């Protein structure tokens, strides 16, 4: 059954492909099989999708200094 078994390293690698629907039929089959029996890789999937989701959120409003803005204005007028 080694043909159908994949390692955790391979499974976590394939999870990124899964996100983009880029798994081949066989890869998808192997990954589903692995995730069924491996709670660690399931955790990895949950935690990394959370990271991916939050990457876009929670960015604080950053403010440029007055000097930086004045410099930009000068540059544009030249």
């Amino acid at each position, binding site marked *: 059954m080694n043909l159908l078994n994949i390692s955790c390293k391979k499974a976590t690698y394939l999870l*990124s492909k899964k996100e983009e629907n*880029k798994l081949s039929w066989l890869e998808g089959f192997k990954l589903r099989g692995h995730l069924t029996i491996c709670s660690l890789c399931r*955790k990895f999937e*949950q*935690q*990394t999708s959370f*990271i991916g989701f939050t990457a876009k959120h929670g960015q604080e*409003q950053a403010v440029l200094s007055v000097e930086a803005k004045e*410099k930009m204005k000068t*540059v544009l007028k030249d």
Partner: protein
Amino acid sequence: MDQTTLNPDQWINKYADALYSYTLPRVNDSALAEDIVQETFLSAWKARESYKGEASEKNWLYTICKNKIIDYYRKKARDIVQPMSQNDHTDGYFDEAEHWTKEDKPADWGIDYQQAIDNKEFYKVLESCKKKLQQIQQSVFVMKYLEDLDSTEICKALGITSSNYWVLIHRAKLQLRTCLEKNWINLK
């Protein structure tokens, strides 16, 4: 187009902070972010004749800014001679059979993910973990998760192969996850 909206002073007052806030988490360097914002205004100003007003002024500036950021990633990617070095950091996460090692296996975070979305501390740690990634990993992570580009577009922009890309994004996720677990979960 209304001439008053083409006033550079007004542009900068209106959009500089927004563009800077957009750029900063994408390049993780305040001086660089400042330069990119300035170049954005400069390019926009030079191209003002060709601006047809089809997109809103704001969207037009954001598009220019986004392209500047991707240009920066592209240049950075070119500087990296051998992104797929033999020193594969992720090898540390797995044992010889490629299963999780005791130290690096995902722990139970025991958090409510819905609540964690609003947790300020989490975002601080996420930012600092992002900074620890190698530059090219940071680029692929940002392009994928902040810019919503797909692997094909990212490979094209950075001039990397798709197999390089999958390895890079895999490593970035392994590193970020471990870093968050060590520095955020353990803080709680």
